[in-house]
């Protein structure tokens, strides 16, 4: 079960994830991200993982794909509030080297909109 709540405004697109990303729920996330990217959305994205205690490799694949897509489209994606188990998977997979990760939403906001 995965709840995805995109909220536009404040100069960036805030997407909150609640639940778990598995091979069953990853396509749902991919669909929402594709719709957001295709729509008239800001270039700046914030993926809030505060309520995401688990992601499988299927979730990592979506994160990697959309980090690339957003970057290619000239945008920027920042992850925030990464939970310990997900942080460990990010570390093991080397994603901490390529993703922008902020400790919380306020820090992420500052990364996206410095002033």
């Amino acid at each position, binding site marked *: 079960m995965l709840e995805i709540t995109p909220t536009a405004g404040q100069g960036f697109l805030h997407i909150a994830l609640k639940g778990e990303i598995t091979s069953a729920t990853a396509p749902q996330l991919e669909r929402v991200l594709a719709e957001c990217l295709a729509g008239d959305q800001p270039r700046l994205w914030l993926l809030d993982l505060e309520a995401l205690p688990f992601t*499988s490799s299927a979730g990592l694949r979506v994160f990697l794909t959309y980090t690339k897509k957003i970057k290619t489209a000239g945008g920027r994606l920042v992850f925030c509030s990464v939970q310990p188990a997900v942080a460990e998977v990010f570390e*093991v997979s080397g994603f901490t080297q390529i993703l922008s990760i902020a400790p919380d939403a306020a820090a992420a906001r500052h990364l996206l909109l410095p002033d």
Partner: protein
Amino acid sequence: MVHPSNASGDGNRESATRTAVIAGGFDLIVTLGALIAASSAVILADFFKTLLEFVAVLLAWLAIRRIHRGANHEFDYGVGKLENLSSLAVAILMITCLLVIVINAAHSLFHPGEITGLGVWISFFSQVVYGVINTRLCLRSRRLAREQNSPLMASQADLFYTKAIGNGFIFLSLALSLLLRGLPWAHYIDPVASLVIAGSILFAALGIFKDSTLDLLDRTLEENSQIVILRTLARHFDCYEELHEIRSRRSGSRVFVEIILGFPGTQSAAEVQAAARRLKEELEREIASSHVTIGIA
């Protein structure tokens, strides 16, 4: 080229398994000695169990040696056939051992008697010695499995754990048969315990059958290997522009990975080909028995 840390890991695994083969071979000789010098159904079952365990460790050692020798694909087809023949031989051996143990136990149940002979004391002594050795090998294999994330070492650790439990069980059954020899029902301890050992062999045989059947079927790649693919793509993050698709499957012992990538139009065909080749080579090095295809969108 072999990566130094991988070479060291392979060396440790080969060394651990070689030690197990030597220990298993010696155990087999001692158990055979006990069998010849004793009249006990449990010691007969122990001999067959030890024989099967020795064959299993020997096959694992041969497999590790083959992996360690590395990229020699010339005889893959022949080696695959050899693996199938080995599995068949182990299966026939297991069934033969089971039949002999069950027939002997049935005979002992109908004609109960005391366990006798010098072999009983040889077996007592060997259960203690091999109980300690198997426990130590189990702890060593478990440590290597944890350090190197090796499923092969994890299965070796499980094998030695089972062997150590077996040593304790046989010791206990012999001890009870000797201590309670004055009681008429105590004569049944020996054949019943041998049937328990036969049950454990049957359980192991079913496990091998299940694993072999699964290996014949196509299935999704394990999570660990999926992470390896993503880690490699993360390492090469700046070499490609878009990640379109990752498809992966395991078919028997072979792994097939297909990755479709997009590259910037500013890159020359030669640069794109070189980047794709680097990625393919790195993945094939990281995932054993893998065939990687990098598609360019």
